[in-house]
């Protein structure tokens, strides 16, 4: 007999997770309910709906960065001038998830906890050094996004832990970031492969900080330390792009599925890496901001 709870605060939600075996949280339902309807897996027997927990929807901006409550919607992220200018890669990714309906109901917490290897927010959060706060009755702990993601559909959160917020540190001035996704259509897509990059240059145009991460190229979204290290101290020329691409290709473990073959994904990894780095560099040079339009710059036919 399935049960449903709609707690009014986070403590109550955490307590329900602790005391009710089989309980799972649902936020917008854009992963959980859709997967159930698509026949992937049935809905959990006990649903703890979070939409009435205002503290999980709160966004706080501090000197140190921004804290996005787990219920922050993709629409909010996409429309936030602040996120677009400071954490552009995240805004890029939020703007290309699903449809307007998916974005207005889907949340950052849900996207992370669903832990799809193809999640668009994964690689941007990795390059932006985001951490998550997990809350359980009696305490909280912080994890990096890399520590959270354990495998396809799996996280390191315990069954009684609730993802309460995502903290993204303020970027060092001069940092530019970008997310590029390869897709078959301009909307309603899952990444074939995606890459996020964050770069900062010194006054001579040499890279002093580099982050690179990939979506849909391995069982989890992952950073590519070898590529990052190789970029330091050099200009972002064709050779640097190619080297980063080679390092990324060496790091990926793509699958063959209905969207693409592993061979194609591997080859495309180098392409999206180069394009993400190039756009991040352009933004770094321009003082870090996503260009005007509401729509992601990374659509089919415009990935270049």
């Amino acid at each position, binding site marked *: 007999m399935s049960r449903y709870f709609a707690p009014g605060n986070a403590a109550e939600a955490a307590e329900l997770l602790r005391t009710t075996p089989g309980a799972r949280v649902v936020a917008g339902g854009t992963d959980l309910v859709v997967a159930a309807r*698509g026949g992937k897996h049935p809905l959990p027997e006990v649903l703890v709906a979070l939409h009435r927990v205002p503290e999980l929807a709160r966004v706080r901006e501090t000197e140190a960065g921004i804290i996005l409550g787990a219920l922050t919607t993709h629409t909010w992220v996409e429309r936030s001038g602040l996120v677009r200018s400071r954490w552009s890669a995240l805004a890029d990714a939020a703007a290309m998830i699903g449809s307007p309906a998916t974005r207005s109901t889907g949340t950052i917490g849900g996207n992370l906890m669903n832990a799809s290897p193809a999640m668009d927010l994964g690689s941007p959060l990795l390059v932006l050094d985001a951490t998550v706060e997990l809350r359980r009755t009696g305490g909280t702990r912080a994890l990096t996004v890399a520590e959270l993601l354990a495998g396809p559909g799996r996280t390191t959160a315990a069954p009684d832990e609730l993802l309460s917020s995502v903290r993204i540190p303020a970027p060092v001035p001069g940092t530019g970031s970008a997310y590029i996704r390869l897709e*078959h259509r301009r909307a*309603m897509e899952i990444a*074939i492969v995606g890459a996020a990059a964050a770069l900062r240059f010194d006054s001579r145009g040499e890279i002093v900080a580099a982050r690179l991460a990939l979506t849909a190229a391995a069982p989890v979204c992952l950073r590519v330390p070898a590529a990052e290290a190789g970029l330091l101290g050099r200009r972002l020329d064709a050779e640097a792009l190619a080297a980063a691409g080679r390092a990324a290709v060496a790091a990926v473990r793509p699958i063959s599925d209905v969207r693409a073959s592993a061979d194609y994904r591997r080859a495309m990894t180098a*392409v999206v890496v180069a394009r993400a780095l190039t756009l991040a560099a352009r933004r770094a040079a321009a003082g870090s901001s996503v260009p005007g339009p509401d729509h992601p710059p990374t659509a089919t036919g415009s*990935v270049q």
Partner: protein
Amino acid sequence: MTGTTSVLGQRFVRRDGPEKVTGEARYTADLAFTGLLHAKFVYAGRAHARIVAIDTTEAARMPGVHAVLTQADAPLVRYGMFVKDRTLFAHEVVRFEAEIVAAVAADTPERAAAAAAAVRVEYEDLPAVLDVDAALSPAAPVLHPDWLDYRTQDGVLRAPNDCGHMTSVKGDVDAGFAEAELQLTETYCSDMAHAVPIEPHAVVAQWQGEKVTIWTTSQVPFPARAGVAETLQIPQSNVRIVVPHLGGGFGGKCDFHFEAHVALLARATRRPVRLVFSRREEFLATDKVRHAARIELTTGVKRDGTITARRARLLLDSGAYCGDALFATEIGLMMVAGPYRVPNLYAEVHTVYTNRTPAGSVRAPGGPQTCWAVEQHTDELARLVGLDPLEFRRRNLVRAGDTGQTGQRFVSSSAQRCLDRAAELAGWPGTDLAEGEALGVAVGWWFSLSVPSGAYLKLNPDGTGTIITGAQENGSGSVMGLALLAAEELGMRPEAFSILYQDTDAGPFDIGSAGSQTTFNNGRAVMEAAREVREKLLALAAERLEIHQRDLELVDGSVRVKGAPTRSIPLAEIAAGAQLIGSGSGTPPPLPEHDLTGCGGRLGYSAFAAPSFFCHIARVRVDRETGVVSVPEVVAVHEFGRVLNPLGAQGQVEGGVIQSVGMALLEGSQYDGGHQLNPGLLGYKLVTAPDAPTVTVDFLDDAVDQGGPHGAKAVGEPPVVGTPAAIGNAIAAATGTRVRALPMNAERVWTALHRPSAGAVTAGGEA
């Protein structure tokens, strides 16, 4: 001419529009019934197997379950439009993954699904045949071991695993090749694709006494009625098919199938029973997909570009059953020469059984794949002789007086004018193109299906009218547009007509919304019915006005004396006191003269009646690094004879072009073993609003009236035929590489560019 202003060619708001924009329009799944039960099918879930045993006892005992039926509960009738090769439920053998093995009726959809899952079926797997090559190999298992015992329509030629083959022969093909200075052989392959109406199939059946009423999402109510009567072995008069608003069909709701299963469940339970497909079932079980095809072409040309001969072989994957697949085969055969002068031709087509989802008549069956292959081949021929693609086509396109591949004489041909107009609109050869962009062209032809149809028309006492037709509105607006033709005859406004349609107890027989035939045939029937009413009106008015009939005209809802507009009687005044009823059937125009000497098999489309022509030019942008193709614009120039409803015709062309952009770049079923891998709208991708190109539409006239109402020709299907071909040629122009598989998705384009050995170009060469 009956009025001062013609309503034909004017903008017109369809009568069913307001209820559709407000959400009031009821579709089959929206209907409510007292005591309704819910149906669920049990599917095979495997490609090919012998049924050892079916145990329904546990399912039948479950709470809320009213019936569990199998073939043992249905008459053992083999049915099929061309080849009677299937039964309602699997009989002894299952031949594709979504073959229906059993059906459940229960009081909730959840209980029906639970009971369906509890039906135990024991199978013995048989070797599966998964593509046309495997099926035609002499060692292949015969998928229908009793095929020789199946009854067929006249003229169907078959072989083991081939449910219909035919040949089209013209001239002397060996002599033609001897005359050629160059020749080119190529092979093109297309994936299976789906119709994908946004409304999934739904059926409700309810018995009262001996009679069953079936509300269904059918494009073809009368054939569906015949199918139910045949498989349940009851008279057609005991079957009433009603189609509420239909949420699109595109051929996927043609033929007949699930109505009978639901009727059986309703009869067994004596309750109304409803079936509603999920989207997954829509992909797996609809069994009316666009054929996967392999198309082999060899053409001989002279150095000046003159085509001297062609050999063609088409293999269409029909899946597990024949269904209405021979439409696709027959039409595909008629597309291999294209709208070109091919003096010497030998073409053969085969409709091949495999253990896949059965194929059928998706919008323009056999058209887009064949046109795509032929038009890629045409561009390659142009390249071979060093001519611009337009110039090569100009030298070979059919003209008035030429004969087509079956000897059909063209009384007119707008092919050349379509080409010239499209080139002008598209700015060929594209001097202002951006980097990575190119144009591609395709020319083609299509037919107007000439079949019987019927309509009644009556005037109401207030001077409005009602049309009662057997024709089926699938959403295109063709039935709504019948009001224009009635209004034109009677000097009325089209808005003054209500239309009673898609009810087999009301309208005369009609083949349904298939073959783009509604306006072409039912339009003539409505005009004939309206003329009968008109004669009656004029006779009555002549008496009242004491003037000869020939001095009267029907204008603005009244009968008036020519030249004396003040002497008039409103129609309402006459209609209130008289029975003004008309009926019409409209004589189908005959096929053009043709010559089938040497041809073989059932050639259902031995000539194209009232042929129409088109030219599409696509502008594409190719990202060479990723293979991603976008299509900013498609120019579509069609000659449809006279365009009666321009807004409706534009809608058909725009919608058809976008559908076929999907076919060109995105849409195709992938298989693993006998299982579709992408039976959903995320894996099987339709074009979305952000992807859709701008479609520039233009219409040309035909100076010759070829028998349609006011010279109109078929509109619905031709728009999907040419765009994949134009896009393919544009990709080749942009990349210098040809993609020989449809859809030409990003990975295939990238593979052609970066792994050329994987999809080697079959080179042309000296003859």
